[in-house]
């Protein structure tokens, strides 16, 4: 069912939805970028649609709602282990098509890899519904079309802000009342999707063992500074590290928490005793890139990367992940031609 609203009318929709849901959306955080007077777009709760950044892609993805950067798992007192509380109120997350595809990858890792599910993920996941932000244009560095994540119909409702009007396609029956009561005009609405991209990416079908040791990765040993930004902004990276702490003012009480981890950052493979599996940044780049466009597919049947392009945009060393995939593909062809 489609609706067209003026901004004020759509805020009434949000108001109605807020009786049950909180709205989590990309928000422009002024002055919170890396450099003086630069901004960052990251997710936060909103009440009015004007507070959401609907034009530009967020720098950090929605995934913080499902796997917080830092999440307390347990509190420990002297003789008790207590699961940390969480906010169980339902949430609607506004996100683009690529990110909705990314949710499938998060679900795969946390609830579809191995016999046990991730309890902490599941309890956060259960309260979340997704709303689609339509895409009027391809985002910088994105290649969603080539990754097949440019379109989706898995959303509760869609939002396209065009010339000050909000176009919505509502699929979730439970939410319909909130949309009907806000005074917008009924119309046929189709969310906008990107169908063409300037930058094309071609993935390799098969990557043989020789490519793992290929000199093509050496370039990244020199260029990459292993800061891990590519992982932290990625909507499909799921790695975490568990930390235990005791509170300094009272050593008897403490907590166990997990924090987002990056396979590019030092320490990721360190084991007690001093062994490090991937020392060079080139090896780490290979590990990451092949996971995104090969290893994950080998295990689960589809590629992990959704082509949002955030990692390219955020890299302080101007390393293009997308271009690396193309280089890999060319190298795979070259190597197989020489066999």
């Amino acid at each position, binding site marked *: 069912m489609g609706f067209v609203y003026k901004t004020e009318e759509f805020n009434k929709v949000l108001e109605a939805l807020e009786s049950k849901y909180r709205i989590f959306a990309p928000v422009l955080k002024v002055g919170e970028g890396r450099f003086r007077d630069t901004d960052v777009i990251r997710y936060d709760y909103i009440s009015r649609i004007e507070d959401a950044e609907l034009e530009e892609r967020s720098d950090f993805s929605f995934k913080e709602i499902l796997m917080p950067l830092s999440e307390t798992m347990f509190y420990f007192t002297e003789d008790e*282990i207590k699961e940390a509380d969480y906010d169980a109120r339902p949430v609607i997350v506004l996100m683009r098509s690529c990110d909705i595809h990314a949710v499938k990858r998060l679900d795969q890792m946390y609830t579809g890899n191995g016999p046990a599910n991730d*309890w902490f993920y599941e309890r956060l996941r259960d309260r979340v519904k997704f709303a689609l932000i339509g895409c009027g244009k391809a985002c910088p560095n994105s290649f969603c079309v080539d990754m097949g994540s440019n379109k989706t119909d898995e959303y509760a409702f869609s939002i396209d802000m065009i010339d000050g009007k909000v176009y919505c396609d509502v699929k979730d029956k439970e939410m319909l009342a909130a949309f009907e009561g806000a005074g917008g005009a009924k119309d046929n609405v189709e969310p906008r999707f990107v169908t063409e991209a300037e930058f094309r990416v071609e993935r390799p079908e098969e990557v043989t063992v020789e490519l793992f040791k290929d000199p093509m990765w050496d370039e990244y040993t020199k260029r990459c500074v292993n800061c891990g930004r590519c992982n932290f902004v990625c909507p499909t990276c799921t*790695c975490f590290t*568990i930390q235990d702490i*005791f509170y300094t003012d009272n050593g008897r009480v403490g907590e166990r928490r997990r924090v987002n981890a990056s396979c590019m950052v030092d320490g990721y493979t360190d*084991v*007690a005793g001093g062994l490090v599996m991937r020392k060079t940044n080139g090896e780490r780049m290979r590990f990451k890139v092949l996971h995104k466009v090969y290893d994950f597919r080998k295990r689960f049947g589809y590629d992990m990367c959704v082509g949002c392009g955030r990692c390219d945009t955020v890299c302080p060393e101007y390393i293009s992940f997308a271009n690396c995939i193309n280089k890999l593909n060319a190298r795979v062809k070259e190597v197989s031609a020489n066999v």
Partner: protein
Amino acid sequence: MCNCGKNEYTPVPSKLQDIIKHTAQEWTFRFTYVGDVKPGQFFQISIPKVGECPISVSGIGPDYVDLTLRAVGKVTDYLFENFKAGDSLFLRGPYGNGFDVHEFEGGELIIVVGGTAVSPVRGVVQYLCETECAKDVHMIAGFKDPGEIMFKADLKDWAEKIDLTLTVDGAPEGYAGKVGLVTKYIPDIPIRDISKCKAIVVGPPPMIRFSMIELVKRGLSEDNVWISDSRRMSCGIGKCGHCRINDKYVCIDGPVFKFSEHKTLID
């Protein structure tokens, strides 16, 4: 509230039944545990406020599991310094695939292990010792020096039932036992039919690499070799990502791998 079922991260209380000290740095902790466990599987020892560490099962009893560890990190150091028999600790597990002991029954088997790596194969050896084919088990166990030899009582017991070669990398003058790397003794193992012979090789990566060279020289098929691997882990249940190699997760697809498969996994 969510209907998420069991929280696999929740540490389960377990009473420490005993501590067996092999060397200054290598002790076996006997934890109370009742349930299905296979040799080669591992548990996360969980110490609230300190951390967790994955340790492979070195022994399985009716109401306990043995976890043998070296004091090399924050959690293990803490364990060594703060606990005694009768204390209560926490575990979660068992995790991983482990060894299928029946796989090795009724045929010739070579076992090459180094140092603490005896742990994951100890259960396999114990099982095979009680079968008719015990005499076809040829085990080479290597330690750094005589002072580092672990599971001495077991080794003595096994020596009577299987073909055991105990060796140390180096020893002071006058040492009566065998000296030399494990690879030195591989060529001498008496095998009737190498094409059907199986092998378990567990130890530090260089030991595995050089042992494999010797075994392959003898004509052993890489498809008939099992190894046990270890990686950094946080979760133990295929979520945290640390232990991934290519498309495999050591914690759920391993830690036991066929060598032919494992050699295609590149860190």
